[in-house]
């Protein structure tokens, strides 16, 4: 533990009314259920549009791993109104960007443009989401690009370590499957699979659209209504029910040999809390203390600062709509793998057996609250924050309440949530590299 001067507990001087809240976030529900959120911001003449749709890798079978992601990418490759070339000429000629991507629980489009081009962004997004044509030559070409990307991924120590980690930590659970799929699954997918996946699963139920920038709220809502308001898909299925991940027993080690590489990547941890867990904010604070604060929290301190063993060593709490992972990771020289893993396990052991110090708690509380203005400075930051409020049903006043929620967390709360999810005895250690 680094020695520090004692600091009195302090509360930051933060003007809560400057944070997004019910008076500054416009929220409307369209007749087909789409929720539209808008925050006006005149700082620069730009706009960001973000969205969440209720479709993702959870809707695909293991044999078709990567189907959701492939479908999402393919939707921008041609629509009933525009060819691939026309779509990208329209976007790029105004300096905008627009992409459609897919995750595990949600998919969506994301766009950025000068404010005057909001209509164009929404028009192109609606075109891609509602009327994709999946031209065969485009699907073939995209398939080849995806396969090349998977080949590259298979050659990256970090990606291979993560893959092995998830396979072991979530054995038998959908999270064990990579949402980008695998060469054999991507190769087997056909245009008909993409058409079918899109037709069955894409629709307005559960959809959220967030607009932030130099636009007027009413005008933005009207645009979303214009392009998406009459969308319907009566066959859109509900969210699949997730099984509970099986408990990890003992230290489960997975090695991926990658001869020719110079450095190892290790990933160590297990299953963490979903965002909806009542102690999620405490878990976030806990993770910050363990492996983020400053130069990687306690883990960064011991593996990098004191140990000199790694350029990066930290921890991450995924959260999300399901029980995301809670894991430490580091890039280390092959001869230091065992030592780095030991240090991480030792830190987890300490973390679960002794409460964090008052000073650590105070510092991390002010970190979370103090950085709110910074995280909410740009259009991207605000769009992400507002979309999160809606996706996790936190309430439009969440950022007003957030400092209070953070300050209420105790050392016992931290220890309790750490003990629930972290263990120095039961964990997965994945290691990819030359040895």
């Amino acid at each position, binding site marked *: 533990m680094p020695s520090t001067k004692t600091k009195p507990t302090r509360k930051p001087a933060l003007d809560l009314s400057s944070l997004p809240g019910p008076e500054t976030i416009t929220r409307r529900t369209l007749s087909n259920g789409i929720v539209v959120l808008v925050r006006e911001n005149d700082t620069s003449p730009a706009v960001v549009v973000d969205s969440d749709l209720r479709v993702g890798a959870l809707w695909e079978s293991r044999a078709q791993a990567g189907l959701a992601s492939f479908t999402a990418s393919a939707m921008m490759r041609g629509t009933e109104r525009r060819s691939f070339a026309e779509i990208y000429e329209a976007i790029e000629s105004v300096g905008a960007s627009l992409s459609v991507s897919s995750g595990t629980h949600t998919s969506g489009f994301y766009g950025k443009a000068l404010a005057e081009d909001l209509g164009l962004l929404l028009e192109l997004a609606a075109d891609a989401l509602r009327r994709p044509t999946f031209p065969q030559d485009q699907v073939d070409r995209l398939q080849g690009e995806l396969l090349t990307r998977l080949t590259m991924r298979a*050659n990256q120590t970090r990606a291979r370590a993560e893959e092995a980690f998830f396979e072991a930590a979530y054995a038998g659970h959908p999270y064990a499957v990579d949402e980008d799929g695998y060469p054999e699954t991507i190769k087997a997918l056909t245009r008909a699979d993409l058409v079918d996946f899109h037709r069955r699963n894409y629709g307005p139920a559960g959809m959220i659209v967030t607009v932030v920038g130099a636009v007027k709220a009413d005008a933005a809502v009207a645009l979303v209504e214009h392009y998406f308001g009459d969308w319907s898909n009566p066959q859109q299925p509900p969210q699949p029910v997730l099984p509970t991940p099986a408990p990890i027993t003992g230290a489960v080690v997975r090695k991926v040999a990658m001869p020719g590489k110079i450095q190892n990547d290790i990933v160590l941890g297990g299953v963490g809390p979903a965002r909806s867990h009542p102690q999620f904010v405490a878990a976030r604070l806990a993770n910050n203390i363990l492996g983020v604060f*400053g130069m990687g929290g306690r883990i960064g301190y011991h593996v990098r600062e004191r140990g000199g063993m790694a350029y990066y060593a930290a921890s991450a709490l995924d959260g999300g709509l399901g029980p995301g992972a809670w894991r430490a990771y580091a890039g280390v020289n092959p001869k230091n793998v065992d030592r780095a893993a030991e240090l991480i396990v030792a830190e987890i052991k300490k973390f679960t057996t002794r409460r964090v110090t008052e000073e650590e708690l105070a510092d991390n509380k002010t970190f979370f609250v103090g950085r709110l203005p910074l995280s909410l400075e740009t259009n991207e930051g605000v769009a992400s924050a507002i979309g999160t409020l809606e996706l996790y049903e936190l309430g439009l006043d969440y950022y007003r309440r957030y400092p209070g929620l953070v300050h209420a967390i105790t050392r016992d709360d931290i220890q309790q949530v750490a003990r629930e999810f972290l263990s120095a005895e039961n964990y997965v250690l994945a290691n990819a590299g030359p040895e």
Partner: protein
Amino acid sequence: MAKSGVTKTRLPNGLTVLLKEVHTAPLVSWWVWYRVGSRHERPGHTGISHWVEHMMFKGTQHFPGEVADRTVAADGGVRNAMTWIDWTTYFETMPVDKIDFALRLEADRMSHALFPPKEVASERTVVISERQGHENNPGFRLMEEAQAAAFRVHSYHHEVVGDMADLESMTRDDLYAHYQQYYAPNNAIAVAVGDFKTRDMLARIKELFGSAKPKALPKLSPRPEPEQKGERRIRLTGEGETAYVEVMYHAPSATHPDFYPMVALDSILAGASSFNLFGGGTSNKSSRLYRALVESGLAAGISGGLSATVDPFLYILSATVRNGQTPEAVEAALDREIERARGELVNGEELAKAVKQARAMFAFGAESVSSQGFWLGYTEIFDTYHWFESYLDRLAAVTTADVQRVAQKYLAKTNRTVGYYVPETK
């Protein structure tokens, strides 16, 4: 105050100070830039500027150990530092009521960094680990070899992280001497953007930095790279299953009149690039090289990049070869597009698109005080901040004839290095 809202001053000890008030958020972004980077390094000391940057996180006289890390984090700020070919920079973006700590920290770093021997030893392995992480990536290895071939004489020839031989042999005294030589007020630029009053901020900066002693800077001008008169080729092999192609042309420096036509040419060939670390670019799927290489099924991706540099650097085109295709086929298709740009005028619409793209990217870059702080300091290294302000106008003045002229002048085979990475399995 200038029309841009920037106040520029020079203290008696040579420190250049740029201040811009932005009152939209209760934040201040604070940067200190030093005119030292890999460009200032000779063989034996490659990577020294970057390692010195690391050491600036290992304690100063008034902020020993990890005090600075903890304080900035606890205060809700973000901080980072970067070393590049032309400069090293340190920044903190903080809530407005916490900025004074960052001002004091950078003042202490400029004059009172400690370089504790134990920390030097520990950080040696960290920097080596950083380099080894890069070495895991075939793209890095290819870039390193090709860049070294492109620059036989000029010190742009090595990677910022440095060569392993030097990382293993440099001493604490070497590092400290480098720091002493280059970390001086007359070799630095201080920038603040955010929610402050110029008068007060300037007074505080004077108070904290005014006593730093100017230094006689080494008269070390990088040796100019002789004109390249023949194509150079690199063929690297190694692990993995993916092949890569890098084509690097010697390019004009940021202050050369040819720079803006090159920006337009790059946008047309490979899509608009952003020079800003904080603003992304746009996709490049309507660009000529994407159509010629990716749509044709030869490459899985193509990117082009121009850098704004003090001395002439490189215009770099990078392609990932698609599974089942060859680097030779990718290069041939690339060559056809280059010849087209050399042989005929681009059309006015393509040029207008390049300008519109730049306009959009500048708008995006103006959203954050950190991004604005970056621009002010970055441009002062190779020119003045007016370079940033006049960028769009100068780009808009480029003609199709200018674009063809620079294509003919710079995109010649005799002016380039071509690198292939070919996996051993193939």
